[in-house]
């Protein structure tokens, strides 16, 4: 019943989402997120997964909260709610929920038949403990912290009924709660030292963290009494005893060449961060299938730091956007595996607004704008100058977050910008130095993917509040958009409970962002997986697009 309140407005957009996913499914030769399984599921076997991301220093996604953590945590942690293929919010650890009309109180009814793999029963106390853990500064949660920012207090009404009291209405709460960064962990386990909990978080998921050989692999073993798949999966796999796999070896192979080689030679069955060219060549290889799962939330875009010169001048921002040709680059570098985006939101976000015309390349207009903005002279190297100052743009690139193809794309942008008279200074940096540079506000351009379910991501990314750092130190509004109207719109949007109004508010917000030339959208956050065709039933969570092996099996 209560969930219907949300379903209606969604229904419209859901279709598009589904279509998008289907498309993905087709382009990737039947390996799509549903990947219509061939033959009967087989029980047993060990699957090896090779991740290209840096090995997480902590397996508990509450701590920090980045995508690599989400990828592995999806296998052993579960959330209160989930989304189905159509983007509908479906029950998971919570069977049903209800919100007060002012949206300040939420009540969740919990499953009473679930226990954590350490034997601790899952109950209201557990939920309270988890939310407390995420909100505890000592946990240094970043993603989860922002997602639950509006939860003021948690009350265990009874063993299996929990009430969340909000500081302000949050229309994105369910979407937020569906994310693995706020997934449920055993309160008993959470009481351990952070070091211990990081090494082996305890959840209710299909697999259990068995051992962690640092810099080699994490071994996950079957959760023998697994009973709590999300509603939609439960229906689909009625009667079968999930999961099928005995164990998963989760390896970390940073070198993309080695990773792909390992897949080809059969050392591993699934790899992530697949390089575009390898995806392309995989199409002609029957032994390898693709799984394309664009991440929700923001699109992959370049933020223009409007907080300082020269981008504090809108004309310069527009000039930059107008003078760089992104499409060709994407074409040649991504081999058609990536669609150009003109929206701040991912293509899987139903409320995404695309304004292609804004991004048509027009070098004449660009130079006109620059002359107008006073950058009318050029120095010996052909860069524009304004009273002695060269038109220089610092572009710190996080080598951990940008795949090589993307870095190459930036190089091409750099080349384009040069002809227009911009000196773009690319500086590839390790994550830590990269954060450092951002914190020092020593950047003009930056690309920082942000994954969150639902358009509420806009509030996190472009509300002026986000210019001030979160406890973990990260601040999300890298474009440093400081626009009262925008703030207003975003606050309303997250507060309103009316879906239609919400949609139009977000559209308006996106329009401001796009027309303000604060960002240069590139494409969806790429999230390509390659799997050996012996792997069946692999599915990406509709929440944050992390693959789940709950229903996967190995064809002998």
């Amino acid at each position, binding site marked *: 019943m209560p969930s219907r309140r949300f379903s209606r407005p969604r229904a419209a957009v859901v279709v598009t989402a589904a279509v998008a996913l289907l498309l993905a499914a087709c382009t990737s030769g039947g390996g799509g997120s549903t990947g219509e399984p061939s033959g009967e599921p087989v029980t047993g076997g060990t699957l090896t997964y090779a991740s290209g991301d840096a090995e997480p220093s902590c397996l508990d996604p509450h701590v920090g909260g980045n995508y690599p953590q989400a990828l592995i945590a999806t296998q052993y942690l579960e959330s209160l709610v989930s989304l189905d293929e159509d983007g509908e919010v479906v029950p998971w650890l919570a069977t049903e929920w209800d919100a007060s009309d002012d949206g300040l109180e939420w009540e969740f009814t919990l499953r009473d038949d679930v226990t954590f793999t350490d034997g601790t029963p899952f109950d209201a106390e557990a939920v309270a403990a988890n939310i407390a853990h995420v909100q505890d500064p000592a946990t240094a949660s970043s993603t989860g912290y922002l997602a639950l920012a509006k939860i003021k207090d948690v009350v265990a009404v009874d063993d299996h009924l929990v009430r969340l009291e909000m500081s302000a209405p949050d229309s994105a709460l369910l979407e937020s709660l569906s994310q693995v960064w706020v997934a449920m962990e055993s309160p008993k386990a959470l009481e351990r030292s952070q070091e211990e909990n990081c090494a082996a978080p305890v959840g209710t998921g299909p697999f259990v963290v068995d051992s962690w050989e640092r810099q080699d692999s994490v071994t996950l073993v079957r959760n023998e009494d697994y009973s709590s798949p999300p509603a939609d999966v439960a229906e689909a796999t009625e009667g079968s005893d999930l999961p099928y796999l005995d164990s998963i070896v989760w390896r970390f192979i940073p070198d993309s060449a080695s990773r792909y080689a390992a897949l080809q030679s059969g050392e591993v069955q699934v790899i992530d961060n697949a390089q575009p060219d390898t995806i392309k060549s995989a199409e002609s290889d029957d032994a390898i299938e693709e799984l394309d799962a664009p991440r929700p939330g923001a699109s992959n875009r370049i933020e223009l730091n409007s907080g300082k010169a020269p981008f504090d001048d809108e004309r310069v921002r527009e000039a930059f956007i107008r003078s760089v*040709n992104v499409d060709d680059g994407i074409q*040649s570098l991504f081999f058609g595996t990536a669609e150009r985006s003109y929206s701040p939101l991912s293509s899987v976000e139903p409320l995404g607004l695309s304004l292609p015309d804004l991004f048509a390349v027009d070098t004449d207009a660009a130079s006109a704008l620059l002359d107008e903005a006073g950058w009318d002279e050029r120095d010996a190297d052909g860069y524009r100058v304004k009273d002695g100052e060269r038109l220089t743009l610092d572009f710190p690139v996080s080598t951990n977050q940008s795949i090589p193809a993307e870095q190459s794309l930036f190089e091409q942008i750099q080349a384009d910008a040069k002809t227009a008279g911009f000196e773009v200074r690319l500086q590839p940096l390790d994550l830590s130095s990269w954060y450092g540079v951002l914190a020092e506000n020593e950047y003009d351009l930056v690309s920082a993917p942000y994954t969150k379910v639902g358009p509420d991501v806009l509030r996190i990314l472009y509300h002026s509040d986000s210019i001030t750092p979160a406890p973990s130190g990260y601040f999300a509004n890298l474009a440093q958009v400081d626009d009262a109207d925008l703030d207003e719109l975003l606050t309303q949007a997250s507060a309103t409970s009316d879906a239609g109004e919400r949609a139009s508010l977000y559209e308006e917000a996106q329009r401001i962002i796009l027309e303000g030339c604060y960002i240069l959208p590139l494409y969806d956050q790429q999230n390509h997986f390659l799997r050996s065709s012996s792997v069946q039933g692999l599915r990406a969570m509709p929440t944050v697009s992390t693959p789940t092996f709950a229903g996967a099996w190995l064809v002998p």
Partner: protein
Amino acid sequence: MSRARVGGFRPTVTEAIAGVLLLLLVVAALWPSLLAPGDPLAVSHADAFQPPSLAHLFGTDESGRDIYTRVVHGASESLLIGVLATAIGIGLAIVLGFVAGLGPRWLDFGTTRVVEVLFAFPGLLLALLFIVVTGPGVLSSTIAVGLATAPGYARIIRSQVRRTASAEFIDAARVLGRSRLWITARHILPNVTAALFVLATLGLGQAIIWVSSLSYLGLGAVPPAAEWGAMLAAGRTYIANFWWMTFFPGLAIVASAAAATVVGRGIQKRNRSAS
């Protein structure tokens, strides 16, 4: 095999080839446009990932830049870095080596120990430690390599100085009443520098490899700079489909390193047979 060692002053075939290679390298470093008129940074989406052909001898990379042009222009980057690093290393080593070689016993002992300590840091480690302190970048990686290689040189120089200083002709000079300073200036210095030159050429090859390794690890040269190591690093991701992006820069490194070694050994051989 004795012919292998005597071999007059006429260069062997290998040495000749190596010499030519080095020469090309120097030319490429100083006047790259002579060998490759193109612009190493010119992006052209149309001809990305072109295999080697007449139009593009070494093929093109992901941004359609001509790899041949980049390799040639990369020479200056790599060579300069290599030379600089070697210079730093040997410069440092000379000071240490001479202090140890000519100074009094205790000073020798002290310096030698210190050198040993530095030597105790596997080169790349020393370099990495340095980079942690200074942060990544071409300059710091160059200095890092310089520092990392210095101890090795210092050892050699010291023993060289020691050997020369204990040679009989030094006694002869002392008997003729030559002062310590004079002997150092007229005998030891010249005799050691001969060896130093060899050391430098031999070291250059290694330095190039080192620096490229650092770039490969993403701690050295910054893209789109046409530094060989960086090119290799960029190319490796495409190895599965576009081998040429890795092969040719790698070849450049191997060839120049090998050439430097051959030439160095050649000179060494002659020095030895001349003394």
